């Protein structure tokens, strides 16, 4: 679905801080930032990624994104262990702007408490409401 010019995918869950998470199965999820976040940051030039194997608690900083004019933290949507990072972004950070939901993914993780923590995530329609609200303000 789309809110204004922003794409929101139906098969993902979201955070209010504009991360998306795709829950593939109990052992694997993929995380990135949303179309809206990438557009707000604009011209992403550097990305830093977490170490593979590191364990990060829900809501803690897992990666950072730097654009010409600002810096943003990427928070982990579910507690877990990082199993793979998208090192392609170190050479080509512009992929986050070009393809936030596909080539611009940040990391894959093995979540620990998927069911209990999932309740705090936003459904696509709840995230769409948030974007609707944010775009009307400006």
């Amino acid at each position, binding site marked *: 679905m789309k809110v204004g010019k922003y794409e929101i995918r139906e098969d993902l869950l979201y955070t209010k801080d504009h991360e998306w998470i795709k829950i593939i199965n109990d052992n694997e999820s993929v995380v990135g930032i949303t179309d809206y976040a990438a557009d707000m940051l*604009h*011209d992403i*030039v550097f990305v*830093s990624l977490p170490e593979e194997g590191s364990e990060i608690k829900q809501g803690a900083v897992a990666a*950072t994104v*730097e654009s*010409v*004019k600002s*810096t943003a933290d990427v928070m982990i949507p579910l507690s877990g262990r990082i199993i793979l990072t998208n090192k392609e972004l170190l050479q080509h950070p512009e992929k986050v702007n070009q393809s936030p939901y596909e080539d611009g993914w940040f990391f894959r993780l093995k979540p620990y408490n998927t069911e209990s923590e999932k309740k705090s995530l936003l459904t696509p329609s709840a995230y769409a409401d948030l974007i609707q609200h944010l775009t009307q303000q400006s």
Partner: protein
Amino acid sequence: MSKAGVKVTQIFPSYKDSCKLTEFAGYLLPLYFKGIIDEVLAVRNSVGVFDVSHMGRIELQGDDASNLLENILTISVTKGEPGRAMYGFMCNERGGVVDDLITYKHTDKKYTLVVNCSNKEKDLAWMRKSSGGMNVEIKDITDESILIAVQGPSSSKMLDEFGVGDIKRFRFNIREYYGNEMMIARTGYTGEDGYELLLRNVTHSNPDKGIRLWKHLSESAAIFSGLNCGLGARDTLRIEAGLPLHGNDISEDISPVEAGLERFVDFQKTKFIGKDALEEIRERKHRTMVALVLKENIIPRSHCRVFMGGEEVGIVTSGTYSPVLKKGIAMALVNSELKKGDLCEVEVRGARWKAEITGFPFYEVEKYGYRRRSN
């Protein structure tokens, strides 16, 4: 819709739907059109067009216009002949910078000043206070004129139709545009060759000629593979060139001498406001402005602290990502013992990152900037 109390320039309606807007110094202005990096590279490689009508424009007229400027500016306007554009500072008694500005000399009795948007009211009050008993009229012409910058190596070719060929750097000519007076100056804030066009008699209620000029320049730029540019590109370009921004790199507390801009302070003048303090600062100078290039993929921002061997040695005053260098760069005010080639560390988000002290401008002068080898 703009929020209550926020100003826009006279030509805002012609671009408002084609850019991302941002609020700056009380104005709603373009942050970028196509994108900051694309716009920076357009100016470095071809040409960019900027609406800078938010900049304050002040006209001084009267027998004492030169006397007033000699007293409040760090440079000598009487030494310059008519047609000169002169960069300099208005300083306070402590040698701090009230504002930096370009003074355009029409005659000994008439000058146009271009000042920073956020300082305009302060500047007007400062000039009025300093002109007591003098025969000089100080007039704010910001709302009855527009200012458009055309910057980049293709700017001379692009503006050929306006006969800019005979205008030298930091000189200006007066032309006419559909009956309105237009001052074309070969000045700018990007480090590149370029021009600033000041068109008179364009108001919010009668903006047509201003909008016509903006549209014309935008279309001309496109022919030269140029772009409309916003404030994001403007700030990044001026940092790459090592040009100061008032409030960051110079301020009421950072003097031109410390900021490495002594060449715009004429100590041979018998007197001007701030001269004694500036002479003293020159004697016991303990801070100096340096160029830092980050060795890692990190962007320094203003207020980041600078360290050397574990000791704090200064602070970043402006920082950005340089599209030309593809690295994080910063202007930093540091202990004056630090010199070119020294390695230091910049603290960003709690961690320290290696940086090297280089020189201004950040780019290679053979390849970029107005001194580049002509192609």
